[in-house]
């Protein structure tokens, strides 16, 4: 998929035959197969690192791609400075060690604080680190692609069946199984490895054996990061080093571990080979959208083995995202009136502000709807999607197609466009709801990236990187004021509809599946059907927001369904308060306004944003609205205590935060104590 995810990586050393003379000869297939195997090596290194870390710490390290990229950059610097045989190979190994040390530092400073937090928070925090690294890398090494040296001693090519295969590729082909064997020995023949395997099975038992768990975790994390750094460093003779390689590899790695099974090193190896070969041959079968092949295989594996080829079923999920023990209430009459007043006041904006402000406000309205749709899935359903932008973007493309291809009027496009998002949600959602927790997050991300790749690669239809231009609103809605009113109206209606859904019987069914899958099944609720429906509902509203967005911007681009857009949505929900009903809207308004302001103030917006995400996760996991509700609740309890001191059970209402990961019920502890 490296050709897919980020196309800016030039393949320098690709000694495969010229694309034009793509003859279907046996020789050609053999060489193509070898190229696939060589690509698999790095992919395996990175994926096995992710798997090992997950096995012990239960953290899916989103920043793994960032460490892969760092490995490549550091190796570039070292091999550039120290030439010759030892300079090169020493540089590669030292680069991986340096990156591993940075990884250990990250584990000590950040991860130790969030081991018990919900999965969503761990993914987000490590994603925040990824963002920060992206800006730091550009700061240190500059934005241009860097081309590293070739490997001394392995510069040439070997003649195989009359075609030239780079010696370095052959080296990588051998290296993959060697590393696999080395890891096996490490885990089965050393005391440390045995401890790690024991910790993978049962963490508490290892703690009981008197092993220092803290440092065991740190060393495991460092090993995983070492493998990622090594994978990156080994790529420099093959590919240019770019500051985009982190996201492209992480998506590939997610696909690999979803197929191979999280926690299984052998699974990672098999899946890395499978995915790399599919990429190598996919180009031949679907030259335009080779990604489809990987998608099909991943889908098949998931149907047959939801936990991957060699993965094991996850135990019951940890506390899902969005779970609060403060029951939600519909708005009171007064609160409704206040909201109405706010909306009416927002409607007066065109009389007091200029055109630019109105476009910004319209954009905020669009994103409020987008965030609300994600909130429905993530908070109400407990399903943290890392690829929600897919449905936003599909809605945008749908509207653009309707306008430019079929010449629909704006209203028609706004109604039909989102259907593309709906279709995507129906298709992808069917697979995603079979999984939960981190698997769900990874799969949604992979699907979104697949949608992105199609938008990017299928140039004839989507215009590729150039997007689709000329998606302008109808003349009656073309003034910033009228378009703002349109956006506001659609957004408000959408948000109200989602809120009605939250408190409808369906909303209760959805929350029920989130709170306890076991109980829900035991009272006749079909979990995957309910969650699938929620996925489609969320995708529908995201699609509506996307269609509006297309008309707001007058164009659509692959960026509209890219990972950063998905993460924007997650941050909005988190910032507003993941355990609350109205957090998403508040979060969207604050975040979007902040982001627009930030971009105008600094070049390092990713660094700042990443830091904000990490800070939010570690220090304010309840978000703005959650924080406000806590304050209110505390004041109320105090007032109550003044009146009737004898309240029944200890008011735990404000105690367990998702950040600290405290279980809301004492039941599992009782069981352990037995």
């Amino acid at each position, binding site marked *: 998929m490296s050709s897919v995810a980020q196309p800016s990586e030039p393949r320098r050393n690709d000694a495969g035959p010229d694309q034009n003379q793509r003859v279907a000869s046996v020789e050609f297939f053999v060489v193509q197969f070898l190229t696939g195997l060589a690509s698999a090596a790095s992919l395996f290194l990175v994926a096995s690192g992710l798997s090992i870390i997950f096995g012990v710490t239960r953290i899916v390290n989103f920043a793994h791609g960032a460490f892969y990229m760092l490995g490549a950059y550091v190796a570039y610097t070292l091999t550039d400075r120290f030439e010759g045989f030892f300079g090169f190979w020493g540089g590669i190994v030292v680069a991986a060690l340096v990156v591993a040390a940075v990884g250990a530092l990250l584990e000590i400073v950040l991860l130790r604080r969030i081991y018990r937090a919900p999965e969503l928070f761990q993914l987000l925090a490590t994603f925040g680190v990824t963002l920060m690294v992206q800006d730091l890398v550009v700061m240190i090494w500059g934005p241009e692609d860097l081309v590293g040296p070739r490997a001394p001693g392995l510069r040439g090519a070997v003649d195989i069946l009359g075609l030239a295969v780079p010696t370095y590729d052959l080296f990588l082909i051998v290296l993959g199984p060697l590393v696999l064997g080395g890891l096996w020995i490490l885990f089965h023949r050393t005391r440390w490895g045995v401890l790690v395997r024991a910790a993978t099975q049962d963490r508490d038992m290892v703690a009981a054996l008197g092993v220092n768990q803290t440092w065991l975790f740190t060393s495991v994390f460092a090993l995983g990061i070492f493998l990622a750094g090594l994978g990156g460093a080994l790529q420099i003779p093959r590919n240019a080093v770019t500051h985009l390689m982190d996201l492209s590899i992480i998506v590939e790695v997610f696909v690999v571990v979803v197929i191979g099974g999280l926690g299984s090193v052998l699974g990672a190896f098999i899946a890395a080979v499978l995915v790399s070969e599919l990429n190598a041959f996919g180009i031949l079968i679907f030259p335009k959208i080779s990604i489809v092949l990987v998608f099909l295989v991943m889908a098949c594996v998931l149907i047959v083995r939801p936990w991957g080829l060699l993965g094991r079923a996850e135990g019951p999920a940890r506390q899902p995202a969005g*779970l*609060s*023990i*403060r*029951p*939600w209430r*519909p708005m009171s009459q007064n609160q409704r009136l206040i909201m109405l007043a706010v909306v009416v006041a927002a409607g007066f904006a065109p009389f007091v502000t200029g055109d630019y402000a109105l476009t910004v406000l319209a954009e905020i309205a669009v994103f409020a709807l987008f965030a609300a749709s994600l909130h429905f899935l993530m908070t109400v359903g407990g399903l943290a999607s890392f690829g929600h932008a897919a449905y936003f973007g599909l809605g945008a493309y749908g509207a653009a197609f309707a306008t430019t291809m079929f010449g629909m009027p704006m209203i028609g496009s706004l109604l039909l466009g989102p259907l593309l998002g709906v279709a995507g949600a129906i298709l992808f959602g069917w697979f995603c709801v079979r999984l939960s927790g981190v698997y769900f997050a990874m799969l949604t991300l992979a699907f979104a990236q697949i949608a992105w790749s199609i938008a990017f690669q299928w140039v004839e239809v989507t215009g590729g990187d150039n997007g689709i231009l000329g998606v302008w609103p109808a003349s009656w809605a073309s003034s910033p004021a009228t378009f703002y009113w349109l956006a506001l109206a659609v957004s408000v209606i959408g948000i109200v509809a989602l809120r*009605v*859904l939250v*408190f*409808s*019987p*369906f*909303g*209760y*069914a959805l*929350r*029920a599946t*989130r*709170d*306890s899958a*076991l*109980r829900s*099944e*035991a*009272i*006749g*609720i*079909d979990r995957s059907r*309910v969650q699938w429906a929620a996925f489609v509902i969320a995708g529908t509203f995201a699609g509506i927001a996307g269609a509006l967005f297309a008309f707001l911007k007058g164009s659509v681009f692959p960026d509209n369904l890219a990972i950063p857009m998905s993460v924007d949505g997650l941050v909005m929900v988190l910032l507003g308060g993941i355990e609350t009903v109205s957090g998403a809207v508040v979060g969207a308004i604050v975040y979007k306004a902040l982001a627009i302001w930030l971009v105008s103030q600094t070049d390092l917006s990713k660094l700042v944003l990443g830091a904000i995400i990490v800070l939010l996760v570690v220090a304010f996991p309840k978000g703005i609205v959650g924080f406000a509700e806590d304050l209110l609740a505390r004041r109320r309890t105090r007032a109550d205590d003044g009146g009737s001191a004898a309240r029944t*059970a*200890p*008011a*735990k*209402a404000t105690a367990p935060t998702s950040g600290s990961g405290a279980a*809301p*019920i*004492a*039941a*599992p502890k*009782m*069981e352990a104590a*037995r």
Partner: protein
Amino acid sequence: MSTPILEVENLSKSYGGVHAVRGVSFTLAAGEILALIGPNGAGKSTCFNMLNGQISRDTGSVRILGRDTAGLRPREIWRLGVGRTFQITATYPSMTVRENVQVALLSHHRELGRLFGFAGARHHAEADRLLGLVGMRDLAERPCGELAYGDLKRLELAIALVNEPRLLLMDEPTAGMAPKERVALMRLTATIAREQSIGVLFTEHDMDVVFEHADRIMVLNRGSLIAGGTPAEVRNNPDVKAVYLGEGSVYGGEAAA
């Protein structure tokens, strides 16, 4: 007598080399209260989980109201009229106590697919009636997440009664409760079972509760049934004594009494 509520024949399950349950057979009549007892790890929960379809069985057949349940999912078995409480309670901590019951009622009336209308207003009275049965009427508005463990157990009973079950499967229904509460809950269960002629299968570590309330007792050890009969028969069975010897359980005192 009419068809038994539950007929179990040759039920077995093993995990790797561990025979969690082997060759268990029994029947349960309407209105009967049957206790399944045995030391920790005897296979009691595994039996319950096979009966309500939560885990698949290796061998054996289970008939509920004469209907073979092979291949049915828990939610389908629930629709046959089976209520279930769990050893480790499974409730909805983000909802109030009443809402927990309301969700089950909505499901029973097949209304959970509705996309609008305030769910909190539906089946309000019926939910309160069920909560009243288990003595939790006062707690209806409380967040379920802050209930004491014994209250969660009672809530589970209320939820289990939602679909007017013919069979109740209760895995340690009184664990974590004060002795008085235990007696009250089991009395209540017995009354309901007799009135509505529900068959009750329950397991319990507190032998006072078992011997006082069960009509019949089966003893499971290492997956196999080693004894069965009336409380008096089981009490005097030497095999049973051997199994419980050294457990230091209440049973010792009971037997002497």
